[in-house]
């Protein structure tokens, strides 16, 4: 085994970039308007009770778990692409929204998180 380092470094980068934790990150869109913003998070198939949304300073975190309940007994996977298990996604909100009020609800498989400036 003379050539180990060379051989491996060729695909070092591709392997190394796979190095991550066992959580997946859902995709989000962020919308803005005066006095608030709306975060849309693609979380189809996640039960509402399995999601948690939290705001710490200006950091908004959405985390939870997507379970894969079998469609029916007796079915076997032929392929799987959808990420399951624990997920987590954090983003920093625009200035001026720290400590804002957040509400979340589901629509068509999207989790909609509304962040509103505290009206005083």
């Amino acid at each position, binding site marked *: 085994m003379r050539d180990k*380092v*060379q051989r491996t470094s*060729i695909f070092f980068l591709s392997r*190394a970039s796979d*190095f991550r934790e066992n959580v997946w990150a859902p995709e989000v869109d962020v919308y803005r308007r005066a006095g608030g913003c709306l975060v849309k998070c693609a979380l189809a198939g996640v039960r509402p009770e399995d999601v948690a949304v939290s705001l710490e300073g200006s950091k908004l975190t959405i985390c939870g778990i997507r379970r*894969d309940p079998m469609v029916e007994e007796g079915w076997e*996977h032929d392929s799987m692409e959808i990420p399951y*298990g624990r997920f987590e996604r954090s983003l920093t909100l625009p200035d001026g929204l720290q400590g804002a009020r957040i509400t979340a609800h589901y629509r068509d498989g999207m989790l909609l998180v509304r962040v509103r400036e505290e009206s005083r």
Partner: protein
Amino acid sequence: MSEQDEIRTVPLLPIKNTVLFPHLLLPLSIGRPSSAAAVAQAMAGEEKQIVIVTQRDVSVDDPRQKDLFTVGTIAVIKKMGRRPDGVIEMVVHGIERVTIVKVEEKSGALQATVRKVPAANDGGAEVEALLRAVLDLAQQAIALAQPQATAEMARLMLGHDDPLKLVYLLGSVLNLEVEKEQALLEASTRLDALRLMHTYLSHEVQVLELRNKIASEAETEIGKEQREYLLRQQMRAIQQELGEQSPDQAESQLLQDRLAQADLPDEVRKEGERELKRLQKLPPAAPDYHVIRSYLELVLDLPWRKRSEETIEIARARKVLDDDHYDLKEVKERILEQLGVLKMNPQAKAPILCFVGPPGTGKTSLGQSIARAMGRKFERMSLGGLHDEAELRGHRRTYIGAMPGRIIEAIRKCGVNNPLLMLDEVDKLGQDFRGDPASALLEILDPEQNKNFHDNYLDLSFDLSKVFFITTANNFDTIPRPLLDRMEVLTLSGYSEEEKTEIARRYLIPRQMSESGLTSAQFVIAPEALRRVIERYTREAGLRQLERGIGRLAHKAALHFAEGKTEPVAVGADDLAEMLGPERFFLEQARNEMSPGVATGLAWTETGGDVLYVEAALLPESRGLTLTGHLGEVMQESARAAHSYIWSHCDELGISRSQFRKAGVHIHVPAGAIPKDGPSAGVTMASALASLYTEHPTRRDTAMTGEITLTGLVLPIGGVKEKVLAARRAGLRRIILPKENQKDLRELPDEVRSEMEFVFVERVKDVLAAAIPEIAKQFQVVPAA
């Protein structure tokens, strides 16, 4: 955490040759049925967990507990799919270290009872120090092995705060022997793991240093290639272990298969194999990879030995030619002759034919027809606007973005080595052609040289001698001389109105109808309408505009039926305005009145013939000769010659010298900005001047053409057919022609010949007599009718 928490039962997947470390991803292919069953069980679980343990011995196919290492990794299946052959491909993500307490069988799969054994989270000075040493060594190793990756590596390694993760990362990329990898996994403290890694890396660095030294001592190309080759081999082995075949590998495999099967000359095969070897040694990201691949594809695509079976049967060929084209008797006969020669002696060197004629006279389509008659493939390319010799012969491969030349591309496109290759527009080879146009083309066309045609890109000689070349040109005069000498010119002149009508009726209309899906019950064009299309919607020697016009009529009719209407479409002359828009040309009428100083000439242009008027005017109190109207050099010279001739024959012509001594002359040839050149306006210039000085007009119904000499001789000119047809279009019925052009009248259709009056002349005197009735009287010569 209680004891209970740490023990659980998970489906077990034994793997060979590699170890899964926590925190890392690993792609796997699963073929064994027991493994597939374990995957199915894992997938059915909420968390999709599976425990992955490496086999001690790769040769065991149905491993029991004793065949497995005792420490493995719990993993989560991230992705999976099944290949058509049933093999499961999946990606697993290592979570944490476990020891295997018990292995048993459950519904066709192995199942393990496992206990978590997290490595001790030890720290301290020793761990710190070792960590630094390991980082150091790792960087050295990378620098030695692949200097360009150093920066990226450093970033990645420093990004991990946990020494254990770093060790696992290095362990997975170093491709250590399985036993070493397993030892890393089994290390139960960070210190142990770092110690092991340090040992492995030191060894690695030593080996690399030694090897680099040897390499630099014997720095030969072969050494480098050998090393790359080894690397390739090993990478492939790894990919095989992982059940992967990378796309580039599949690609080079495909090329290899094609190469093995292709029917190639030895020399070509050798070159192909050499390039393939180079390709296989390169990573696909290398810039050269694609260069070599495209090159190999070209070599494999080229028809080195593939030819279409030629079927020369003269009777059939004649029928094909007649089916496709009206008339063109001489050209067709010449082609049939050549086919006859080829049939008797397939080795005969075909002369290079060159079709010369105005646009739309059937040069290209005749070529297609010949190909059909011979059973060869047809391909055409234009030489017009070609700026660089390399476009013909290609660029050397050392050029960035190099490509083969157009000749080789054309051959590749037809897929046989004996096509009929038509090179259009030889007369339009760029003047700014870099390199020598004539010699580049000559090498391609010359049967002596093209057996070993050399394209710079291909860099192998390709035999073009089986190709049947035909070139085309609109203008004879601008074909480079050396080329012209090697070619046999066949002229396709323009068509008369009657011929156009015939061609339209027999060829163009049926063709356009079948293209639009019309039957003869659905669509007719009245003869009167066709005539009007020819006369008022087109002005051309060939058939382009006419074909387009007919096409538009057919499309309109097709639309009519497509809209659901059913009554047949009969196109009458009065429908044209609506279907084709307003008339575009009016019959060029001969001038109604000819004042002294004007004469009617005939010109030949690339697009056919044209009537042109030469006007001469006196410029009192000035001197010399002024010429305007975009006249070329040659035409200006004939104007001067005409002027000198008239002056030197003043007395004979009854011109009063004293009257004109103080006046200059201005000759103008109107009709737009079209550049005019050629010697054939000589007689017209002379007539205009004679008319001006004698103050007698030329005949209104007479057009003339011919070159003159200072001594008063009239020399023959070219393009007789086009000129006569143009005169006729303009309503002129009498034409003065050089005697020597009499033979060219054969080319004219009978109805044209019988309708026109021709006056053949040998001397300028005869021209003037025929053109200016008053002068005829003076000469008392009766012009020959």
